């Protein structure tokens, strides 16, 4: 360093100035996530004004944050029954009342203007609503980040809670997201490994009639594969009747066909919205007796009495909004009771509620008619 001490001093001064400046610059923590449609979503800070497109998304956010309502500006609650809504409200009524509750039945009714007016800093759309490409484009033009994420865990995927993890990152709770994801994945793996073992020993897949919206019409609606619930039956080592006929969500099978197929297990899904229509009633605030009585009523329809499931008392009901992983365990215990005696879905539910939920869900979320009352 030639030039004398003055030169060295100047260098030191420059260095310190730079260091001070550098230290003074605030940490520009940019959050970046690739959503499930391959789009890169960038936020400058964790999202605090979120729009959620699915009724079940509130529950998902609740798993990641103790005060979910404070992060939501607008939410599509669609057909969510009042009891469930009241339950969510009870966490923090003031914050909840500030949420704009929208009723949007599909992407065609999604209005960019209606969303923009709430000034969200993140819009989360699931794949169904993500089809509204025009709206997504308009939101992006308005400078609002859009993330296409399915928040509800898809147990058929390698990483079931992928969407949830990504949302966790977007709200700055990445660790919590990983925790939930790990829990769900480990429980899921436990079930499918055991099922794999059972089937490997040559046990036949029991035939299952899974009926969505159980009881509102004559026998029977049937769930297909490709959509949540039906897939759980496959994962749990069963097979759905009517599989060859019905794709996607649901279709109608005639009573003759059902009798001919003679399924070994019947699983209906229902909720409080079926109360008035004489269907299977399950959910928040429902008494166990009510649920069981409604299931009995559902089974009184023409075509169900002669089937094996009824004769052997393997008739069950599930809440359509329940935790996927709990439902998976329930179905596994129903399909292969001898092999799943040590797994208690009620415990799983209780643990999830305790560890991840700000409030415990009270009600009846599954029911059965069996030879011996359980």
């Amino acid at each position, binding site marked *: 360093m030639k030039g004398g001490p003055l030169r060295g001093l100047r260098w030191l001064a420059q260095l310190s100035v730079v260091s001070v400046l550098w230290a003074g610059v605030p940490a520009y923590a940019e959050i970046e996530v690739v959503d499930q449609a391959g789009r890169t979503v960038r936020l400058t800070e964790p999202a605090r004004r979120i729009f959620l497109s699915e009724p079940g998304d509130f529950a998902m956010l609740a798993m990641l944050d103790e005060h979910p309502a404070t992060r939501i500006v607008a939410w599509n609650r669609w057909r969510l029954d009042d009891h469930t809504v009241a339950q969510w409200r009870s966490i923090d009524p003031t914050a909840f009342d500030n949420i704009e509750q929208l009723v949007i039945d*599909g992407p065609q009714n999604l209005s*960019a*203007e209606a969303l923009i*007016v709430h000034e969200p800093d993140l819009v989360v759309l699931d794949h169904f609503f993500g089809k509204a490409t025009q709206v997504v484009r308009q939101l992006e033009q308005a400078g609002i980040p859009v993330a296409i994420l399915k928040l509800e865990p898809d147990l058929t995927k390698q990483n079931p809670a992928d969407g949830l993890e990504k949302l966790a990152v977007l709200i700055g709770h990445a660790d919590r997201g990983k925790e939930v994801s790990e829990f769900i994945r480990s429980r899921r793996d436990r079930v499918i490994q055991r099922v794999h073992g059972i089937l490997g020993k040559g046990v036949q897949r029991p035939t299952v009639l899974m009926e969505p919206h159980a009881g509102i019409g004559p026998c029977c609606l049937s769930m297909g594969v490709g959509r949540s619930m039906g897939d759980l039956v496959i994962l749990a080592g069963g097979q759905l009747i009517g599989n060859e006929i019905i794709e996607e969500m649901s279709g109608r099978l005639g009573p003759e066909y059902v009798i001919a197929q003679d399924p070994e297990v019947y699983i209906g899904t229902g909720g409080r919205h079926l109360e008035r229509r004489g269907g299977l009633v399950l959910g928040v605030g429902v008494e166990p007796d009510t649920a069981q009585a409604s299931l009995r009523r559902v089974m009184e329809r023409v075509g169900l009495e002669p089937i094996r499931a009824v004769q052997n008392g393997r008739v069950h009901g599930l809440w359509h909004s329940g935790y996927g992983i709990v439902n998976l365990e329930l179905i596994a215990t129903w399909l292969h009771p001898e092999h799943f005696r040590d797994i208690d879905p009620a415990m799983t539910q209780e643990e999830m509620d305790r560890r991840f939920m700000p409030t415990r869900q009270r009600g009846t979320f599954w029911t059965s008619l069996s030879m011996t009352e359980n």
Partner: protein
Amino acid sequence: MDVSPQAAGSPEHQSVLQERWIAHRRIVRKRWFVVFGLAALAIVAALLDLFTGPAALPVNKVLHGLFDPDTLSRPMKVVLWQVRLPVALMALLVGAALALAGAEMQTILSNPLAEPFTLGVSTSAALGAALAIVLDWGVPGTGGAWLVPANAFVFALGSLLLLQVFAHWRGAQAQTLVLFGIAIGFTSGACLSLLQFIASEDALQQLVFWNMGSLARADWSSVGMLAAVVGVTLPFSWRAAAQMTSLRLGDERARSFGIDVSSLRRWALVRISLLAATGVAFVGTIGFVGLVGPHVARMLVGDGHRHLLPASVLIGASLMALASVVSKLLVPGVLLPVGIVTALIGLPVFLGLMLRRRSMQA
């Protein structure tokens, strides 16, 4: 009663004729005033459409934003220029297209209660849309957002072309056209029902919604296309105006005036096809505008196409713009499909027109 023309030269005779001529001119001028008034109405209706919406944009901001977009915040600029403006323009264009098609259809079918969908166009378009929505079938090359409209357009146009073939084969009288149109409509309807039966819940919902008619899908490219179609057909309709007016007096009479009636009908049908098919493709089924628009226009300016066409176009445009406003305001927070609004409003208006017609004839 003076029948011979010999007294024609007399000054009293001439002044009588002059008076009548002046009276006639006055009527014509009055009609043009009505047309200009309707133009003003359409503009007001379109502005109302721009002023309404879930985002609370005050009127002065909207007006400023129209002339100088940068006065608005980025989200509001998108709201005005990407959401509201295309919707407002689409409303005007669809209303204009349907009313224009309706006016021409009512003349060529000699039926004041015909509308562009009388010939089964809307059902065929719905069938096309259903094939795209339920089975993902469509015109090769169109994809994504264009799949459904392109298919709807092709099927709508196809049904009308089929009609042209029938008409050529059996003669293009008004009754023949209607009968074939009804047959086509029923066939399309049956196929549509079949598709609805096998559709998944998802697709079914989409289909039902598409059928209700909605302006929400409007964007600048679809607006541009519809504008092009209307822009191209309008001059041709205008050129045929005098001949269409003669058609009101009857087929034989018009032909005796030197008009090629079957050619006139054929070309009118081509124009109607383009307008109806394009309108339906982008917006879905909208009823009553094509019926009520020309009907009201006729009550205001008479049967002559030179006045009837602009009046119908403007009334149709205004109706749709107002329907768009109502669809936003009727149920707070919900954007009703505009086809529902036109049906709800259209039905009582339609009944009113029918009763009035009865009393006028009685």
